[in-house]
């Protein structure tokens, strides 16, 4: 598992953790039932506050990505394939919405945007 924290990013640190763990789960790098580092262990490793990692885990738990058992630690939750896909789509949708907004503010047309999207998809 890889988690990279940027201190200069505008994205709050707990969200950086949430995003990267989610990606790991959605892409299948972290499989159902596998153990996550403890809240305090992760904070120590990443040199960040316990409150930050706690908040990240709570967020992931709320969204059903992980489960926490008192005294045993946190684990990747069993994910329904269908649900997993939906969650993935939701993330993509959110990011696209952002791009659309930016495009609109810059007077870039839907066609131009679609073209760009196709091109990017092919190149990636």
């Amino acid at each position: 598992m890889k988690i990279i924290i940027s201190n200069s990013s505008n994205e709050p640190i707990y969200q950086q953790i949430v995003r990267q763990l989610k990606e790991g789960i959605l892409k299948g790098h972290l499989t159902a039932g596998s153990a996550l580092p403890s809240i305090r262990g992760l904070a120590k490793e990443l040199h960040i506050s316990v409150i930050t990692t706690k908040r990240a885990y709570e967020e992931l738990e709320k969204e059903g990505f992980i489960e926490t058992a008192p005294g045993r630690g946190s684990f990747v939750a069993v994910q329904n394939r269908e649900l997993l896909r939906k969650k993935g789509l939701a993330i993509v949708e959110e990011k696209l919405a952002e791009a659309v907004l930016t495009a609109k503010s810059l007077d870039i047309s839907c066609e131009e945007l679609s073209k760009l999207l196709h091109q990017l998809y092919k190149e990636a």
Partner: protein
Amino acid sequence: MKNILEVKKLRKSFKNFTLNDISFTLPRGYIMGFIGPNGAGKSTTIKLIMNLLKKEGGQINIFGKDHIKHEKEIKNRIGFVYDENHFYEELTLHEMKYIIAPFYKSWSDKLFDKYMKIFKLPANKRIKELSKGMKMKYSLTIALSHDPELLIMDEPTSGLDPIVRSELLDILSDLIQDENKSVFFSTHITSDLDKVADYVTFIHDGSIILSAAKDDILDNYGIVKGGTDLLNEYTQKAFIGIRKNNFGFEGLVDDRDKARNLFKDNIVIDKPSLEDIMLYTVRGNQYAQSNH
């Protein structure tokens, strides 16, 4: 018992300084940094907590108990690191241990040896031969050898190089791994807290300016930058401190969203550091006055 340390309306006056009914709490399992400029009241507060000074008013509870009524029991469960060396300079590290160990019921030679090893301290050297960093490490070794639940330190990092400071902060992270221990330490080096602190309490001129989770502070506060044409009597009120220059202004706000609503897209908002917050709060009024 959720809070390991509770300070309520603590008061103490000196000739030229008053600690002004300060209150804050530290939950079990977390690290709190106590920041403020020199002379703000950090050491006074810590001495009052340790009952080395007599308080004039207020209440201090440690482990849920009154800190004077249960002083003996409480001090057996606290590790304390002073800002200065309080050991016999002529003794070796090993000899000094024999003087201190009997004071604590739960003293553990095993723990003492463990930290001596971690810090690579020479047991047979005299204390006066140690460097500043080593003296601090020795103080910490002594403070941790009775396995305290609460570690209180007064300016442990001042005068230390960044490498030793970072080692110290690692030890603090290690300590709170078991969810049961807490650390309370004062510093004026705010970057020590950027990493490891869970809570920050900021004292200035004998009063608490803010005491909150560090993440909440850094998520809400912001450095706003824009043209001076945006400033008028009304908008200026949004700032804790403002600094103007020939090309625009920079100011600290405690609510980024509010500032965004007020100024829309005419401003840039940067994430503040704890140092920014300290500087603008302490000098905020001076900045404002000198520019009017």
